[in-house]
C-alpha cells in the first residue's frame, strides 16, 4: 500500500517552520502587511496540502480491506539509546491525525486571515504571525508524531508558543502574569506526562505508537505484573500521562490557566485556547486509546471529564467578561470530549464514545473558533470585554450577529447544527455506559445552552437602546469572511458520516441516532435557551432577582469556586513555606555555608603564611641557612646516636 509516495506531507512541517524563521528573523525588515500576507499564503498552501493528504488517506491509501491502517509515511531515526529504544522523528498518518491536520490547518487559516484585520496596526504584528507559524508547526508535529517522545517534544513547543502568544501584549502586567501561570501550570502537569512516558517506555522498550497501541502488545502483561501502591505500573503510567493531557486540556484541577490565557489576542485564543492546542489532551488519550481501554484509569478519566464539564458550565453562567465565558465554555466542551473517551469501549459500536469524542473535537473546533472570532469582532467594535458595555449590537454588527447565532445554536446542540450530532453521540455513549455520568453531562448541556444564549442576548439584545460614544461598526472583509466560512462549517460539519472514517479500531460501523437521548438533549438545549430568552432578551430585573435569591451560589460561581485561591494556598502556604523555605535555608546555610567556610579557612591560612613569600632574598637565605644547619646537626647527632 505504500507504493504511493506521501513524503510531500513533510511540507506540512517544513513550511510553517520556515515561515517562523523568516517572519521571526526578517519580519521587522518587512512591512507588517507583507509579513501577514506571507504567513497567510503559506498557511493556504499548507491547508491545501493537508486536505489533499486527508483525501489521499481516507479515500485512496488508508484503507486496507475494511480497516484504516496507520501509515508511517516518513520516519527518521534521531536518537538511539540501546536495543529497540530509540527516538524517531517522523510523520504517521492515521484517521485521527488526518482529521487533526484538516482541523488545525482550517482553523489556523481562518485565524490568519482574520488577524489581518483584527491585529492591524498592532505593535509586533510580524512577531504575532511568526508565533502563529511556530504554533501551527508545533501542533502539526504533535498530531503526526510517530512516537510518544516526538509528541512530547512538540507538546512542549506548543506550550512555548502558547506562552509567547498569551504574553503578546507584554507591556500589560496581567498578560505577563497569565502567560506565566499558563506555562507553569501546564509545565507542572507535563512533568507527570514525562514520568508516564518513562515508565511506559521502560516496560515496553519502545516509544513507538505502532508498538504501544498494538492491542495485544506483550509489554502490557509485563507492566501489569509490577505494582506500586496497589496500582499496576501500567495504570500509574497511564494516569500520569493523562495528568499531562489534563494540564493541556484544562481539566480539573488544572483548568485555572485557561481563563487567564484570554489575555492574549482574541484570534490567538480562538486558534490555541479553543480549537487546537487545548484538545491536545483529548488527542493524547485518543492516540493511546487501545492501552487505556478497560482500565480503571479510563473510568477515572470519564468522571474527571464529567465533573469538569458540569463545574465549568456552572462557572460560565456567572462570568461577565465575554472571553471568560467562552473560556469556561471551552473547558466544559473539552470535558465532554474527555468524558466521551472515558465512557468508550474498543471496537465496533462499543467504540461509539471514541468516535463521538473525535466528532465533537471536529465540530467544536469550528463553532468555538467562530465564537471567539465573533467575540473578537464585538470587542473590536466596542473596545471592551465586559458584558455591561454591550447590548443591542445586532443593529450594528449584522454579519457577526448571524454567525454568532449559528455558533450558539451549534454549541447548544440544536438540530441540525453540527453540535447536535456530535453532542448527541457523546450523550448516547454516556447514557449506555453510566447513568450518573450521563446526568452530569445532561446538566452541563442544559447550562451550556443557557449560558451561551445569555452571552448572545447580552451582546446582541438586552439593552437595545444603549448609546455608544463611538458608533460600533462591522469589521472589514478580512474579519467577516472567516466568520462566514466558519459559520457554514459550524452549521453543516455535523453531516460528515464520522463513524465510517474515525473509529477506535479503524473499522467502520453504523452510528444511529438514539431517539430517547436525542430527544432529551434537544429538550435540554431548548430549555436552556428558553430560560435565557426569558431572562436576558430584554433588560429586566429577573437576573438580579435570581442572584439576590442565591447570593452565595452566584458569588461562588463568579469567583470560580475559589480554585485559584486553593492552588495559591497549596503553593504559597504549603509548598513554599513548608517545603521550599526549609530547603532554601538548608541550601543557603549548610551547603553554601560549607563552601563559604572552605573559602574563609583558605583565605585566613594564606593571610597567615603570606609573610613567607616576602621577596627579600636575604630573608630567604637566612631561612635556608637555618634549615641547612639544623639538617647538619640532626644528621650528626643521628650518626652519633647510631654509632654509640
Amino acid at each position: 500500500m505504500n507504493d504511493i509516495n506521501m513524503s510531500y506531507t513533510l511540507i506540512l512541517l517544513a513550511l510553517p517552520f520556515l515561515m517562523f524563521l523568516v517572519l521571526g528573523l526578517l519580519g521587522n525588515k518587512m512591512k507588517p502587511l507583507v509579513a501577514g500576507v506571507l504567513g497567510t499564503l503559506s498557511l493556504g498552501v499548507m491547508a491545501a496540502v493537508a486536505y489533499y493528504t486527508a483525501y489521499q488517506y481516507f479515500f485512496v491509501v488508508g484503507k486496507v480491506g475494511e480497516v484504516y491502517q496507520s501509515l508511517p509515511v516518513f520516519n527518521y531515526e534521531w536518537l538511539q539509546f540501546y536495543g529497540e529504544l530509540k527516538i524517531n522523528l517522523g510523520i504517521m498518518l492515521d484517521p485521527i491525525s488526518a482529521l487533526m491536520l484538516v482541523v488545525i490547518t482550517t482553523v489556523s487559516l481562518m485565524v490568519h486571515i482574520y488577524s489581518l484585520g483584527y491585529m492591524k496596526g498592532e505593535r509586533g504584528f510580524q512577531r504575532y504571525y511568526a508565533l502563529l507559524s511556530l504554533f501551527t508547526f508545533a501542533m502539526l508535529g504533535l498530531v503526526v508524531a510517530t512516537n510518544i517522545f516526538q509528541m512530547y517534544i512538540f507538546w512542549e513547543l506548543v506550550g512555548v508558543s502558547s506562552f509567547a502568544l498569551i504574553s503578546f501584549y507584554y507591556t500589560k502586567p496581567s498578560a505577563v502574569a497569565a502567560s506565566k501561570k499558563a506555562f507553569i501550570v501546564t509545565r507542572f502537569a507535563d512533568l507527570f506526562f514525562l514520568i508516564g512516558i518513562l515508565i511506559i517506555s521502560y516496560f515496553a522498550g519502545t516509544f513507538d505508537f505502532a508498538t504501544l497501541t498494538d492491542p495485544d502488545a506483550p509489554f502490557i502483561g509485563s507492566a501489569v505484573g509490577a505494582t506500586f501502591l496497589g496500582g499496576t505500573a501500567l495504570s500509574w503510567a497511564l494516569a500520569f500521562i493523562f495528568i499531562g493531557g489534563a494540564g493541556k486540556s484544562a481539566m480539573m484541577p488544572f483548568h485555572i490557566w485557561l481563563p487567564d490565557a484570554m489575555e492574549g489576542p482574541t484570534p490567538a485564543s480562538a486558534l490555541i485556547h479553543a480549537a487546537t492546542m487545548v484538545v491536545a489532551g483529548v488527542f493524547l488519550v485518543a492516540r493511546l486509546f487501545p492501552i487505556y481501554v478497560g482500565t480503571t484509569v479510563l473510568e477515572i478519566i470519564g468522571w474527571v471529564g464529567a465533573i469538569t464539564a458540569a463545574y465549568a458550565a456552572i462557572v460560565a453562567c456567572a462570568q461577565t467578561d465575554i472571553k471568560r465565558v467562552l473560556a469556561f465554555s471551552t473547558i466544559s466542551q473539552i470535558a465532554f470530549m474527555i468524558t466521551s473517551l472515558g465512557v468508550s469501549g474498543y471496537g465496533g459500536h462499543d467504540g461509539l464514545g471514541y468516535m463521538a469524542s473525535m466528532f465533537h473535537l471536529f465540530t467544536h473546533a469550528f463553532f468555538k473558533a467562530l465564537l471567539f472570532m465573533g467575540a473578537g469582532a464585538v470587542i473590536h467594535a466596542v473596545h471592551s470585554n465586559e458584558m455591561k458595555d454591550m447590548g443591542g449590537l445586532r443593529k450594528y454588527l449584522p454579519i457577526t450577529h448571524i454567525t454568532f447565532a449559528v455558533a450558539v445554536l451549534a454549541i447548544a446542540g440544536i438540530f441540525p447544527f453540527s453540535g447536535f450530532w456530535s453532542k448527541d453521540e457523546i450523550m448516547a455513549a454516556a447514557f449506555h455506559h453510566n447513568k450518573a455520568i450521563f446526568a452530569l453531562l445532561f446538566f452541563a448541556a442544559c447550562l451550556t445552552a443557557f449560558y451561551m444564549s445569555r452571552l448572545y442576548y447580552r451582546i446582541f439584545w438586552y439593552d437595545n437602546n444603549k448609546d455608544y460614544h463611538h458608533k460600533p461598526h462591522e469589521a472589514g472583509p478580512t474579519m467577516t469572511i472567516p466568520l462566514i466560512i466558519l459559520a457554514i462549517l459550524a452549521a453543516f460539519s455535523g453531516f460528515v458520516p464520522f463513524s465510517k472514517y474515525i473509529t477506535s479500531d479503524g473499522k467502520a460501523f453504523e452510528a444511529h441516532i438514539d431517539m430517547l437521548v436525542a430527544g432529551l438533549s434537544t429538550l435540554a438545549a431548548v430549555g436552556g435557551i428558553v430560560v435565557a430568552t426569558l431572562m436576558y432578551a430584554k433588560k429586566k430585573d429577573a437576573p438580579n432577582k435570581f442572584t439576590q435569591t442565591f447570593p452565595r451560589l452566584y458569588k461562588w460561581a463568579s469567583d470560580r469556586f475559589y480554585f485559584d485561591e486553593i492552588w495559591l494556598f497549596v503553593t504559597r502556604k504549603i509548598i513554599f513555606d513548608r517545603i521550599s523555605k526549609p530547603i532554601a535555608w538548608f541550601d543557603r546555610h549548610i551547603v553554601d555555608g560549607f563552601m563559604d567556610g572552605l573559602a574563609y579557612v583558605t583565605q585566613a591560612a594564606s593571610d597567615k603564611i603570606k609573610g613567607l613569600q616576602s621577596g627579600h632574598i636575604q630573608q630567604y637565605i637566612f631561612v635556608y641557612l637555618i634549615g641547612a644547619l639544623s639538617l647538619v646537626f640532626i644528621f650528626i647527632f643521628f650518626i652519633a646516636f647510631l654509632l654509640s
Partner: protein
Amino acid sequence: MNNIPMEACLAISTLMFFAGVYGFLSRKNMIMVLVSLELMLNAVDLNFVVFNRYLYPGQMEGMFFALFGIAIAAAETAIAIAIIINIYRNVKRIYIDENITELKH
C-alpha cells in the same frame, strides 16, 4: 710552621665563613654583599688547602681545587660587578630593596 695545629686553621676558616654569612645576610649594599660572598668562597678554599696539607701531604688535588675555586670566584665577581653596574645605571642605587624588582620586566 708545622707547629700550627690543623684545628687553628679550621677555626680561622670557620670564622671567615660565618663572617661572610653574616655580611651576606645583613648588608644592604650590593658591593658589601659581594665582598661577603668572596669571604665565604675564600674560607672554603682555605679549607681545601688545609685538609690537603695536613691529611694527604703527598697529593695535590686539594690545592688544585682551591686554585679552581679562585678562578671561578674571579669570573663570578666579574659578572656580579657587571650586574651591579647595570643596576646602578638604571635605578641609581645599589641597595637590595624593593626597587630592584623593577628590573624584572
